[in-house]
């Protein structure tokens, strides 16, 4: 909890949320919040969040995002100034051939890597301004990650994998076990909570990953090629699961993919080519014949 005071109208609120705009006069509170965060214990209060107050239209914004990698004496420009606004509650797909920079963009948005220049805002908070603790907090609480290769911890059971982010969030053991069990039950793995990842099929592992991404009720789910290692049918199941989640809970889903099945469910498709946005399509605008799978 931190007391935030609006410099313009004097409005005060003791908040636990990402309060970046004054609810009364709409003044920008980012700077105030950052200072409050600095004076808090060990600068651990920069991110202050209250769900009822955060109503920014855009949950993620990038401004002139560039990323350069040095390979030997060559500089590879993976991103060349990407400007992208992602709306709250949107299902957004980032598409592009391999090497186009979509994974790099994904890493920037997810706070997994730092851009060479440009800024990336999450809930209007500049990620470059966050210290290590705030960044970890953001990853733990605001973002759920799903990967192509599932990335479950191999030595832990499905349940332990799902509860790991809850341990970091400081949930009590009982609450955590209960929630983990329920989440796994809801993704259809109620019988397999004590199985290790290698005892599960690809589709089941990915469902554990989906359950894990929901562990701390994130605002954004980032999925990097979630269907890349799955067969058609299982891939479709995962996509449907994500889509239904997006519709029912309003969680923002950002997915890097080149799976055409994704187009069908995405609100917008961002096409990336050579490190820049080539074009953005809205689902309404595209008529696409996506072949249905047998048995449906």
């Amino acid at each position, binding site marked *: 909890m931190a007391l935030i005071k609006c410099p313009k109208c004097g409005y005060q609120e003791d908040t636990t949320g990402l309060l970046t705009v004054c609810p009364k006069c709409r003044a920008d509170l980012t700077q105030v919040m950052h200072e409050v965060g600095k004076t808090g214990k060990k600068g651990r209060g920069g991110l202050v969040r209250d*769900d009822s107050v955060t109503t920014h239209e855009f949950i993620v914004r990038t401004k002139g995002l560039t990323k350069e990698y040095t390979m030997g004496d060559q500089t590879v420009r993976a991103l060349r100034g990407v400007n992208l606004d992602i709306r709250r509650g949107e299902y957004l797909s980032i598409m592009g051939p391999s090497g186009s920079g979509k994974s790099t963009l994904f890493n920037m948005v997810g706070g997994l890597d730092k851009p060479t220049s440009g800024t990336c805002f999450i809930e209007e908070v500049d990620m470059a301004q966050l210290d*290590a603790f705030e960044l970890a*907090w953001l990853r733990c609480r605001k973002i759920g*990650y799903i*990967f192509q290769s599932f990335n479950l*911890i191999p030595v832990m059971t499905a349940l332990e994998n799902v509860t790991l982010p*809850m341990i970091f969030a400081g949930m009590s053991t009982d609450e955590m076990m209960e929630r983990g069990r329920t989440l796994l039950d809801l993704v259809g793995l109620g019988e397999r909570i004590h199985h290790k990842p290698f005892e599960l099929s690809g589709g089941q592992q990915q469902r554990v990953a989906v359950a894990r991404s929901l562990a701390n009720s994130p605002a954004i789910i980032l999925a990097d090629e979630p269907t890349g290692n799955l067969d058609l049918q299982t891939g479709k199941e995962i996509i449907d699961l994500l889509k239904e989640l997006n519709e029912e809970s309003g969680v923002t889903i950002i997915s890097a993919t080149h799976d055409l099945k994704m187009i069908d469910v995405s609100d917008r498709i961002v096409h990336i080519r050579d490190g820049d946005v080539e074009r953005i399509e809205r689902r309404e605008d595209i008529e696409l014949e996506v072949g249905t799978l047998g048995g449906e």
Partner: protein
Amino acid sequence: MIDIKKLAELSRQTDTELKIGRQITLPWGNAFKISMRNVTLRLGRAAITASGVVLGIAFLMSVWTSRVAIEGIERFEQQSARAVSAMDEEGNLIGPGAEEALAEKNRRNARQNWLVVMSLLVCTVGITNSMLMSVTERFREIGTMKCLGALDVFIVRLFLIETAFLGFLGSVVGVIIGHVIMLITYTIKDHSVAAKMDWGEMLMYVLIALAIGTFLSFIAAIPPAVRAARMPPAAALQTEI
């Protein structure tokens, strides 16, 4: 079938409903559990890491056991020689051959100290190497943990608990191996060596060896653990092994 409504409801819960504050924590209890899980489930890897310590400490212990054994035997011989020859106040022989005996003892001690240093070096290099290996093969896992919100210090903590445990276990095994082998060797030479040894001194050496083994493992694990923890998650996730 998947109950999406319930799932969506769960995924919308606020901090208050989740009963969590703004902290990021890894309680020691959980850290211990995760580390122990890593040891028991990667037994092969753990055995390799520990074997570095086992070898080093066994070497160290064999040197110390033989020192205690030789001193014990000498003391016994001196006591029986006391009747026939004179001695100074420190218990060293005086008379014919005394100087050679003293010089020989000093030479032996210097040689043994050199061996001790060597064995510790072997120990440290062995542990650092196997720690580097075990950290490297877990880069992806470390990246994943950081994605889930782990702070750098959590990663270091997990690795340090693991190596401290392995280091202690390896030291115990090493002490037993080194001690037993040397004891057997000397018992073959002199059947009553066990009675002639100073067991108080021996116990002190055992404790020192255990402490050194654990401490060296701990120190040797810090650089690779810190390196792994500092990696940006994106880079850690991309490593293919």
